[in-house]
């Protein structure tokens, strides 16, 4: 195997995934035009890229409770949480206490997605 074949093959992953700088793309492309063995390697790199992407895409996201945990640990301690509805659709109202105040937030949940519909932030000094 020639030296430029070795160098090209190390770059084929990034050529296949679109992660090469334009100048490197040009070098790889020029080599591929003249080297059938490396073209076969490129076909393999493209197959692997497709298979990995399709496999990883099937991993679902984190459960909803992960966001609740993050919010509780960044916003303060949850004081109250009221939820209505089902796993498909519903609304929730939450109040926390933290160093930045006493925020109250309302959220709408629909088919696994959540959006905030309102937020009221009240400073601790105003609450006392």
């Amino acid at each position, binding site marked *: 195997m020639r030296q430029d074949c070795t160098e090209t093959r190390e770059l084929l992953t990034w050529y296949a995934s679109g992660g090469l700088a334009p100048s490197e793309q040009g070098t790889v492309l020029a080599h591929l035009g003249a080297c059938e063995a490396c073209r076969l390697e490129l076909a393999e790199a493209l197959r692997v890229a497709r298979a990995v992407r399709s496999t990883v895409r099937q991993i679902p996201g984190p459960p909803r409770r992960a966001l609740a945990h993050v919010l509780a640990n*960044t916003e303060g301690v949850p004081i109250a949480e009221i939820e209505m509805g089902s796993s498909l659709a519903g609304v929730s109202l939450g109040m926390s206490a933290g160093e930045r105040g006493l925020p109250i937030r309302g959220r709408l949940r629909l088919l696994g997605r959540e959006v905030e519909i309102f937020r009221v932030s009240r400073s601790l000094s105003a609450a006392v």
Partner: protein
Amino acid sequence: MVDDQGAVADVGRGDRRAFESLYHRYADRVYRFAFTLLRNRHLAEEVVQETFIAVWKGAKGFEGRSQVSSWLFGIARNQAHALLRREARGERARELPAPLPDPEEAFARDQLASRVWEALGRLSEAHREVVFLAYYEGMSYQDIAQMLSLPEGTVKSRMHHARRALAEVLT
């Protein structure tokens, strides 16, 4: 829509909406990264949580010298390693979280995905992270090398080795 750099700047100023927006943009990607590395859904969930808590605390110090995605995956990687170290030292309390659908069940219905997932499991964690960042995130080898503090040649050779191993299960 505010771009990632702008969103992190807003988070640094304490903007909760920007923080949640950043979470929704990246949580799935961070979870997939952590699950690919650790192959454990509960640990992956913890990595997501700890990563975003660290993002909230550290956004003010983000100087924009790297892409937001590289910064976030770098934090996630550190959190994953910290979790593994705590596990190894027995410092981490074993929790019994509510049941979750097992991501690996999805692969059982897809033979190709199942073979690829098995092959990824035979690679080292160091190889799996390069595969994820290159193929799934589309990061350049230069960015991966910078994020992992490795020579570019090491990133390229890890990827070359991983690709050969993965190609075997596709033939």
